[in-house]
């Protein structure tokens, strides 16, 4: 099981902040493909990966990151701190 969390407009498009998934995806990219196939709201959120960033276990990474042993994946737009 993996926790998937969403922030900002990704959260709004998908319509929830967090969900727990039972997935066999080996990488973040595979997980995205799996999510996009579920429902239109996921397709809307993940349509343009260049507009998204991903963190795995609270560390920024890229979409090729492996999911073995991972507890939490977060998807969000580029950050706007400061």
């Amino acid at each position, binding site marked *: 099981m993996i926790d998937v*969390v969403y*922030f*900002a*407009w990704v959260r709004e498009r998908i319509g929830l902040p967090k969900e727990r998934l039972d997935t066999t995806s080996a990488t973040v990219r595979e997980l995205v493909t799996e999510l996009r196939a579920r429902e239109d709201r996921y397709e809307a959120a993940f349509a343009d990966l260049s507009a998204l960033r991903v*963190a795995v276990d*609270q*560390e*920024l990474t890229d979409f090729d990151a492996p999911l073995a042993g991972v507890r*939490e994946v*977060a998807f*969000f*737009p*580029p*950050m*706007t*701190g*400061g």
Partner: protein
Amino acid sequence: MAVRVQDKDFDLGAEVAAFCRGRADMGAIVTFTGVVRDVGGGLKHMLIEHYPAMTQAAIEKIEAEAVQRWSLGDSLIIHRFGALEPGDRIMMVATAAPHRADAFQAAEFLMDYLKSRAPFWKKEVTDTGESWVSAKDEDEDALNRW
């Protein structure tokens, strides 16, 4: 070294005074304060969302990088989240170093990285609606100078 992520406001004067206190070995203290700006007019408030499980550690990592690059005696980073109004303080950075070049450069470095690598997202709520603030290309470009 201290990092605080909080929804409540902070007292800028008190924070700076406490940060400056008893530093006979530091000749330069630089402080920066970020304030909510009403860019287009009609801004009611700015909602700042963050990733609680990640924010503190992400900022500490940026701070550690600054300490490695410059001769810093101390640093303080405060960043707020929640609903803020125009003119409200969003965040502050303070750096202390023996000489001003290190203090200024480290503060700028911290600001550049906080902007693009700390997990915060801003949404502007105006009279006519609401929209997420987009990251700017120049914010990402700013990281390349370091």
